[in-house]
């Protein structure tokens, strides 16, 4: 106990330098704690959100209702309303699922992995990114949940004792997927919520109406910022981050097992797990940039979410985009190197077969588009980076489409070959999921602390105690 306390005491000395290498400050402008709280809380406190918020809501809310409508119709009619037909029995639902799970990854990555690597620049974007994770997981989870058609049979997936005396089959990747995604959703939710507790307390203490006071009060759990509490809280945060890091890597690996463990040429490759994870980070960061650029402008948070943050994210996008490009190339190499005619056919069919257009959209959006971020001009211009990121998002959706559909459309029996065409409901459901995501995000921006207030404060220079030279004196008393 004494030694750890001493370790902490010496941390005072080390921790003074917040930005040892001369970099742009993390919070721009002349800000103190008071103004940071005010500027962030203002987003939720101002009587009315900006006009653009209403416009965005007016678009996303009807889309959300469309999604619910589509789901209701699906439940009543069955999965026949979609374009899924043999041989393409896995179509848009799984494409959308993988797409959204991928988007989710950036949030956890920013909050957990960058935290563990002590990348302090993450503090002003992690909250929004984590929120995005949760909302993306909600959208992702919707698809597997509804694609079974008879959603009231869903409990078959859970290991619950039942009247049939049957248990789920644990040797199947589809069941691993259920566990992975639901664990991921739970842990992300805990992480997000726990990170928010101190900020909810801020909102509670600033609340002007009784309803707000009670609502924020309940969720703030009676937080009072005691140092003993902070100490355990920070430990817990570190532990959750450490748990979330392997988790985030595992989730998309397990998702990729859905494909890789099945013995189909085009799916059955060992490169899938890392390649899926890289793709997930890639698409997730693109989504964060796409959302944060307008959000920071709209809610007046440019001093907290600075260009440096955006630029860093764009660098991650180039890096992961290049990895994804490498994986595409490697798949072809392995197909050729394997000497297996089925494997070779699957890839030639992918690039030149009936879905050649999807394949080349994917390659241009995912491999070529991010390369523009080598230019500082482009990666520091909000408008241009959003354009690139939107292309990336499109490309990543197509990646999943290509993997799923171009593998299934021409299977071993040429007489069974087919071509997939989406129905109206496929399209509406996908658009609806974007609506749900946007709606949740807009509500979050308006009612919850969009930036981690206490964390931003803790990376400001004022937050660090200065060494007073009386530490030798202090250290002698740790026995208390």
């Amino acid at each position, binding site marked *: 106990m004494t030694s750890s306390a001493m370790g902490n005491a010496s941390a005072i000395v080390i921790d003074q330098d917040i930005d040892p290498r001369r970099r742009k400050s993390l919070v721009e402008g002349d800000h103190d704690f008071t103004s940071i709280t005010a500027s962030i809380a203002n987003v939720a406190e101002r009587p009315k959100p900006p006009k653009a918020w209403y416009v965005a809501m007016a678009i996303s809310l009807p889309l959300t209702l469309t999604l619910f409508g589509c789901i209701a119709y699906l439940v009543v009619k069955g999965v026949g309303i979609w374009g899924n037909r043999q041989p393409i029995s896995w179509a848009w639902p799984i494409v959308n699922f993988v797409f959204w799970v991928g988007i989710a990854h950036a949030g956890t990555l920013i909050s957990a992995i960058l935290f563990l690597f002590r990348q302090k620049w993450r503090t002003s974007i992690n909250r929004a990114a984590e929120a995005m994770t949760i909302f993306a997981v909600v959208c992702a989870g919707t698809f597997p949940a509804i694609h079974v058609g*008879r959603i009231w049979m869903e409990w078959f997936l859970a290991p619950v004792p039942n009247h049939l005396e049957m248990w789920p089959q644990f040797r199947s990747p589809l069941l691993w997927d259920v566990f992975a995604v639901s664990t991921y959703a739970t842990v992300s939710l805990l992480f997000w919520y726990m990170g928010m507790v101190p900020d909810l*307390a801020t909102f509670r203490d600033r609340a002007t109406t009784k309803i707000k006071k009670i609502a924020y009060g309940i969720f703030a759990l009676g937080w009072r910022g005691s*140092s003993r509490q902070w100490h355990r809280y920070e430990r817990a945060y570190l532990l*959750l981050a450490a748990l979330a890091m392997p988790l985030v890597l595992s989730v998309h690996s397990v998702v990729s097992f859905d494909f890789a463990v099945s013995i189909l040429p085009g799916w059955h490759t060992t490169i899938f797990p890392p390649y899926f994870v890289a793709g997930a980070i890639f698409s997730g960061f693109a989504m964060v940039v796409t959302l944060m650029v307008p959000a920071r402008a709209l809610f007046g948070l440019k001093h907290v979410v600075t260009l440096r943050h955006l630029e860093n994210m764009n660098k991650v996008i180039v890096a992961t985009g290049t990895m994804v490009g490498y994986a595409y190339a490697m798949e072809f190499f392995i197909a050729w190197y394997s000497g297996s005619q089925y494997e070779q056919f699957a890839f030639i069919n992918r690039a030149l077969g009936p879905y050649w257009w999807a394949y080349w959209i994917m390659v241009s959006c995912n491999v070529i588009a991010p390369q523009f971020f080598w230019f500082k001009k482009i990666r520091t211009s909000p408008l241009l980076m959003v354009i690139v990121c939107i292309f990336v998002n499109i490309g990543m959706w197509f990646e999943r489409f290509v993997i799923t559909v171009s593998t299934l459309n021409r299977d071993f029996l040429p007489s069974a070959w087919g071509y997939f065409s989406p129905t109206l409901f496929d399209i509406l459901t996908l658009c609806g999921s974007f609506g749900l995501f946007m709606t949740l995000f807009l509500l979050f921006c308006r009612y919850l602390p969009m930036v981690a207030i206490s964390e931003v404060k803790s990376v400001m220079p004022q937050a660090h105690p200065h060494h007073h030279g*009386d530490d030798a004196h202090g250290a002698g008393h740790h026995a208390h």
Partner: protein
Amino acid sequence: MNAKAHSPAAPAERTRPLYGVIAEYKDVDSLVAAARKVRDAGYTRWDTHTPFPIHGIEGAMGFGMTRLPWFVLCCGLTGLTVAVLLQWWTNAVDYPFLISGKPLFALPPAIPICFELTVLFSAFGTFFGMLGLNKLPMLHHPLFEHEAFKRVTDDRFFLAIESQDPKFGLESTKALLASTGVCADVVAVHGNGDKGVLPNWMKNFAIVMPILLLVPLAWIVTARHSTSPKTRLQVIPDMDQQLKFRNQTRNVFFADQRNERPRVEGTIPRGLLREDQHYYTGKTGPGESDWATKFPAALSLDEAFVARGRERFNITCAACHGQTGVGDGLVSQRATGKYPSWIPPISLHAENLLAQPVGQTFSSIRNGIRTMPSYAQQLTVEDTWAIVAYVKALQKSQAFPVEKLSPEERQKVQ
């Protein structure tokens, strides 16, 4: 205590217990300096309150590492154990289920679930452990009664010493704190903690609600264990309800309103002409026990016929009776002991069965016998006879005296 004399507040203030004194600071440095001072003065029940975690304040306050990580480790190990036991017990013990020849339980395919549950349990442990150690959620705390304390989540830093501290003295403690770099007067705080904060109706609600929530559950449980003549309520009909007349229902289209139509007098449906009584019923006369003792003449009892019977037997009967007919089929093995009401199939080598006329065995299969159902739907008449022939052969094979075997055959058997 003598709080009365020093508290300028309203009378209500006086009736409530003294929590302690609180000092306010503008910046981190003054707080850390004050914390050192309080620590050095030997106080034990006190705390600092800040808008964000201050690194190194643990040392200035003199407290050590939390036990949280150990707790999380235990949770993680529990998760791992649960995952292994769950997969092994459900898939290899309670419901062994062969799939593509994979082993019932093996470590590699168990890893993903083990990993996920370890992480899940650890995360729950972290979150709830942190809340538990921090005594959260807390409905109310006396410090919240201090108006200025609101800024603790904004930009101010506080140091509070509890009156429960053995070193506490209202005046002396106040003086000690006032000598640190405070930015406002050091004041006493009164309050009750979180007892009695909730209005009564909320408490009652919190008690009644869970009980009410149990009602549907209890209803489901009783429904599971009782029978009812009423038809099931179906939210989504799953093709159970179709536009057709079901068996034994009313049909107003016909004069007699019966849905099942009786056979027209003097006719026989196609393919149902069953003149050969021996062949179709196993009987040779009209009496209860006029069982045929011979196979119908129409059948040729050759090796192919018995082989066919053996194939059908292994498909249709062996599940219960076992391939040798002693009654050790898989269904029987699983059901024995599991269901007290299960009646094990009779060994086909029982004394009375050895002497049983073939017609009677035939009838047992066609019509069922006591708890054994009829297999008329699964078997053609000819196949049924083939099975009877095979059963007879099986019986002979098990009851064959060793002396009658030729020396080579005996060698084989041994």
